[in-house]
C-alpha cells in the first residue's frame, strides 16, 4: 500500500467522521504510513497509463524511504502538537498536505511529481487560509501565487523535457533546466525568491507553521536531488543563499522569521552538497536534510511553546525564560546541538559523510555556513533564555503536556541515527569505504567542534567589542527599509495599473466597441492578404 494514499484517504475520511474522532483518524493514518514505509521493498513500483503517458505512481528506493519515514515522523509530532489548537478542517487539510508530499517523495515519473507538487500547494494554501487571523488572507494569496509560478515553470520544464526525450521517468531533466531551477528555487526558498517563506510562516498560527515547515521547502530540495545534475553553480548558489540567509537571520527580530531564514541557510548548505559531483556527498546531504527536518520541526515547536506561554515572539520583548521554562530550554539546547552537528546526533554522522566527497573549496564554504548557523542560534538562545529583561517577560500560562510531549518524541529521534546509523546506510546503499569509517575518531570530533568554537568566539567578541547591532541584539535594529523590500509585492502595482487601463477602455460605449470590431476586421483581412 502506498503510504501517501493512506494519508490522503485519512484526510478525506475525516470529512465523514465526527469532530471527536477526526484527530484519531489522522493519527492512525499517519502511524500506518510510518509503519508501512520501512517494510516496502526497494524497487517496487506501480505503473499505470494516463492520457498517452506511461506513469509510475509509486516507486520505492532508499532515499525515498528515508525521506518518507522522516517526513511522516515529523508530521506525526506536529499533529500531536497541533491537537490543542487545531480546528476541524486541520484534520482534513494536514493529512492531505502530508499525503501529497509523500506522493511526491515516492513519485516515479515527472507528471505524478508535478501533480502532487501542486496538490501540496493547494492543501497548504487552505491550511494557511483556514486560520482565523485577518492577515493570513493576503499571506495565503502571496504564498499560492508564488508557488503557482514555481508550479507552472515546473510544468513547462517537464513538458519541454518530454518533447525532447519522449519519456517522463523521474531523472535529471535534459531540457528546460532554467524553468526547473526557477520552480525548485521557489519551492526551496532560494534567496531572492524566498520572500514567501518568512512572510507565511511567521504569520500563521504556530501549530500550522510547525506543519508547514516540515514539508514545502524540504520537498523543494528533494526535487533538486532528483531532477538536477550536479553542477558547480549549485555549489556557489547554495553558498550565497546560505550566507545571505545567515545575514538576514541576524537582522531579524521575530522568532519564527529567524527560523525561516535559518531554513534558507540550511537548505543552501544541502544545495552545496547537491552540486558536488560525488555520490557520497549527495547522499550525505540528503541524510543531513532528514536530520534537519527533525530538529527544525523541534525548533518550530519550541517557538510555538514560547508563543503560547508568553504571547510574544519578538526577541526584544523576550528574555530570561531560562528559569521559567527549563524543559523547553533543554530541548532547545539539544536541537541546537543537532543543528550544529555535535557528536552523538544524526547530523554529526551525515556531516562526516557529506564532507567525504568534497574538494576544499566547498569544504571551507560549508564550514563558514556552519559558523553562521551557530551564530544565529547563539543569538536566539541568548535573547530568549539568558538575557536579563528590564521588565520581566510576562509568563501568561504554563504550556500543557500535549505541547511538550511531542518535543520528547522528536528529541529522541535526533539521537537514533547518531547512535545506530547502520540501517540508514543500508537503505542508501553506501559504499564499503564509508561503512568502515570510524565516526568517533579525534579528527572528526575536533572538526565538528571547530565551527562551534569559532562562532562562540565571534559572538563573545561581537557582544563585548560593540557590534551588538550587527548581531541584532540592540532594540530597533530591524527597521531597515532594504530588509523589507519585496519586488514581487511591488509588481502588484503594475498589474493593477494595467487592469485599470483595460477596464477604463471597456467603458460600455457601443460605438467604441464597433470601432474596435471594424478595425479588427480590416486587420484580419490585411494580414491574410499580406501572405
Amino acid at each position, binding site marked *: 500500500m502506498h503510504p501517501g494514499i493512506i494519508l490522503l484517504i485519512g484526510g478525506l475520511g475525516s470529512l465523514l467522521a465526527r469532530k471527536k474522532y477526526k484527530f484519531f483518524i489522522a493519527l492512525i493514518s499517519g502511524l500506518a504510513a510510518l509503519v508501512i514505509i520501512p517494510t516496502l521493498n526497494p524497487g517496487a513500483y506501480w505503473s499505470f497509463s494516463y492520457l498517452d503517458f506511461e506513469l509510475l505512481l509509486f516507486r520505492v528506493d532508499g532515499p525515498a524511504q528515508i525521506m518518507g519515514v522522516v517526513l511522516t515522523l515529523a508530521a506525526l509530532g506536529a499533529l500531536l502538537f497541533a491537537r490543542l489548537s487545531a480546528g476541524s478542517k486541520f484534520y482534513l487539510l494536514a493529512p492531505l498536505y502530508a499525503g501529497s508530499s509523500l506522493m511526491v517523495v515516492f513519485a516515479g515519473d515527472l507528471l505524478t511529481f508535478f501533480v502532487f507538487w501542486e496538490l501540496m500547494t*493547494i492543501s497548504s494554501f487552505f491550511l494557511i487560509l483556514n486560520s482565523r487571523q*485577518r492577515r493570513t488572507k493576503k499571506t495565503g494569496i502571496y504564498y499560492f*501565487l508564488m508557488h503557482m509560478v514555481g508550479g507552472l*515553470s515546473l510544468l513547462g520544464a517537464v*513538458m519541454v523535457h518530454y518533447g525532447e526525450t519522449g519519456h517522463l521517468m523521474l531523472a535529471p531533466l535534459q531540457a528546460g533546466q532554467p524553468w526547473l531551477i526557477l520552480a525548485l528555487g521557489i519551492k526551496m526558498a532560494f534567496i531572492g525568491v524566498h520572500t514567501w517563506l518568512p512572510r507565511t510562516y511567521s504569520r500563521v498560527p504556530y501549530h500550522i507553521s510547525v506543519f508547514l515547515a516540515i514539508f514545502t521547502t524540504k520537498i523543494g530540495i528533494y526535487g533538486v536531488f532528483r531532477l538536477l545534475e550536479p553542477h558547480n553553480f549549485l555549489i556557489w548558489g547554495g553558498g550565497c543563499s546560505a550566507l545571505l540567509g545567515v545575514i538576514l537571520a541576524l537582522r531579524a527580530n521575530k522568532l519564527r522569521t529567524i527560523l525561516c531564514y535559518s531554513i534558507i541557510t540550511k537548505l543552501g548548505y544541502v544545495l552545496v552538497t547537491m552540486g558536488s559531483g560525488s555520490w557520497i556527498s549527495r547522499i550525505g546531504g540528503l541524510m543531513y536534510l532528514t536530520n534537519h527536518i527533525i530538529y527544525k520541526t523541534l525548533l518550530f515547536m519550541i517557538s510555538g511553546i514560547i508563543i503560547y506561554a508568553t504571547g510574544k515572539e519578538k526577541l526584544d520583548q523576550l528574555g530570561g525564560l531560562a528559569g521559567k521554562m527549563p524543559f523547553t530550554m533543554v530541548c532547545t539546547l539539544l536541537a541546537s546541538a543537532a543543528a550544529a552537528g555535535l557528536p552523538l546526533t544524526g547530523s554529526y554522522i551525515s556531516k562526516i559523510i557529506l564532507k567525504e566527497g568534497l574538494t576544499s573549496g566547498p569544504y571551507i564554504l560549508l564550514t563558514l555556513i556552519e559558523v553562521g548557523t551557530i551564530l544565529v542560534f547563539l543569538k536566539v538562545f541568548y535573547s530568549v533564555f539568558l538575557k536579563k529583561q528590564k521588565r520581566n517577560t510576562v509568563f501568561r500560562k504554563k504550556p500543557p503536556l500535549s505541547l511538550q510531549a511531542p518535543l520528547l518524541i522528536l528529541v529522541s529521534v535526533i539521537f537514533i541515527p547518531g547512535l545506530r546509523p547502520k540501517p540508514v546506510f543500508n537503505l542508501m546503499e553506501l559504499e564499503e569505504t564509508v561503512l568502515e569509517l570510524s565516526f568517533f575518531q579525534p579528527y572528526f570530533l575536533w572538526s565538528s567542534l571547530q565551527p562551534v568554537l569559532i562562532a562562540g568566539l565571534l559572538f563573545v567578541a561581537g557582544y563585548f567589542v560593540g557590534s551588538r547591532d550587527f548581531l541584532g541584539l540592540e532594540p530597533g535594529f530591524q527597521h531597515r527599509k532594504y530588509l523589507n523590500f519585496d519586488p514581487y509585492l511591488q509588481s502588484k502595482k503594475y498589474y493593477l495599473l494595467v*487592469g485599470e487601463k483595460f477596464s477604463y477602455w471597456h467603458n460600455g460605449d457601443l460605438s467604441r466597441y464597433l470601432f474596435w470590431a471594424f478595425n479588427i476586421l480590416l486587420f484580419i483581412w490585411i494580414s491574410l492578404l499580406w501572405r
Partner: protein
Amino acid sequence: MNAIIYLVVLPLGTAFLLGILYFFKKTYSRSLILVSVLLHSGLIFWISRQALFEPLLYSPGDWDRLGIFLLVDSFSVLMLSLTGLLVPLAVIYSWRWVDHNEAKYYILLFILTAGISGMVITADLFNLFVFFEITSIASYALVAIPKKDASIEGTLKYIIPGTIGGLFVLAGIILTYQGTGHLGLAGIAREFHLIPELIQKTIITFFVFGFGLKIALVPLHTWLPDSYTGAPLPYNVLSSGLVINAPLLALLRILYLFLNPELIQSGGITGLLIMLGALTIIVGHITAYQQDNIMRLLAYSSVAQMGYIIIGPALATEAGLIGGSLHMLNHALMKGALFFSAGLIIIKARSRNINDFQGLGSSLPLVSAAFVISGLAIVGLPPFNGFVSKLLLLQATLESEQFLPALIILLGSFLSLIYYLKIFTILYSKKGSSEIKKYDPAGLWSLKAPALLLSSLCLILGLVPSLPLKIINKIPHHLMESINFIELFPGG
C-alpha cells in the same frame, strides 16, 4: 437515419406546444418541459452512441443537388452531449431562478436548444446560417428576459454586434456559393481551391470575423460581459457552454474543410488566431480581476477561456484539435459549475458583489466547495479536468514549436489564479454571521444539485480523462483530411 431530424424538431415543437399550453392551461407546462428535455437528452444519448461507430447522415427533403445534409460526426457528438447535459440542468435550475416572464423564458430556451442542436449537426452552409440566426435571436431575447435595466442594455450591446457578425457570415456564405455553386460542406471542400485567391481570403476573413464576434475573441468580446450582467443565470451557463462554442465548431469545420491544415498553417491563419487567442487570454484574465460583480468576473473568465479553446485548433494539428476540443468540453462543465454555485452564493449574500460574500464558505459548505473545486479546475490545477486539457494544449503547442502560446497558456493560468484566489479568500474569511436571515433558499436541491453534479464531473473527468477523449480522439479524422469528410456523402 431519420431520428437525427428530431434533435431539432423535438425542442422546436415543444416550444410551440408550450406557447399553446401556456395560453390555455399552465398546470402541465412544467411536466411537459421536463419530459421534452429528458426525451431530448435521451435522443442525444441514443444517436451519439450510434454516431460514435460511424457518422450518421440524413438528407432532409432530398435537396441532394445543393448538398443539404444533416450529419452527426464525433465533433457534433461532443457538442450534442454537452447540450444534453447542460440544458436539463439549466432547466432544473431555472425553476427557482426565473421568476417572471416564465412562459417566454422556457419557449425561448427550447428555441435556443433547437438552434444549437441544428447548428452542430448541419453539413451545409444554408442550414448553418438558419440555425445560427435562430440561436442568436433566441439568445438576444433570453438576455432581455429579466426586464431590468442591465438586461435591456445587455441585449442592445449584444444584438448590434451579433447582427453585424451574422451579416458577415451571410456575406461569406454568399461569396462561397457564388464561387463554388455548392452549399454542402463536402462540395465546397472539393472545389474551394478553384475560387480566386483574393475572394478566398475575403471569405475566410468574413467567416473569422463573423463567427469571431460570437466566439468573443478580444477585441470582439465586448458584448459578452455586458450581456451576462443582466441575463438570467441559467442562460449564462448555456451561453458559456453552448452558445459561444457552437459558432466555434462551425468556424473550425469551415476552416479545416475549405482549406486544408497545411494551408491554415502556411496561410497565416494559425498566426492570426494564435495572436487573437493570446490577446484574449491576457485581456480576459487581467480585466476579470478588476470586476466586483461576480457575473462580469465569470464573463471575462469565459472570454479568456475562449482564448485557450481557439489556440488549440489554430495550430492545425491533431494534438491541438484534441486539446482544444477537450478544453471546450471542460470549460463548459467548469463554467457551468461556477455559475450554478455562484448563483446560490448570490442568493445567500443577496448581492452580486464579491465583497459581500464574506464568510459564506462556512454557511454554504457544499456549494463553496463546489465553487472552489471548479475554480481550481478552471485555473488548470491538478487533479481537475482543466489541468488535463491545458496540459494537452501545452503539449500541442510545444509539439508544433509555438513557444509563445505555450508561455501564454502558462501565464494565463497564473493570471486566472489571482482573481479566483480573491474570491476564495473572501468566501473563507471570517465574519459575524448574525446578518444571515432564517429563510434559506440556498438549501433547495433544485439549485444545489446542478452545481454539485457539474463540479463533481470536474473532478471525475480530471481523474479519468479517457472517457471524453474516446469521443474527442475521433474528431481529427474527419477534419484533418477533408477527403475523409467528403467520402461520407453520397457521390463523394
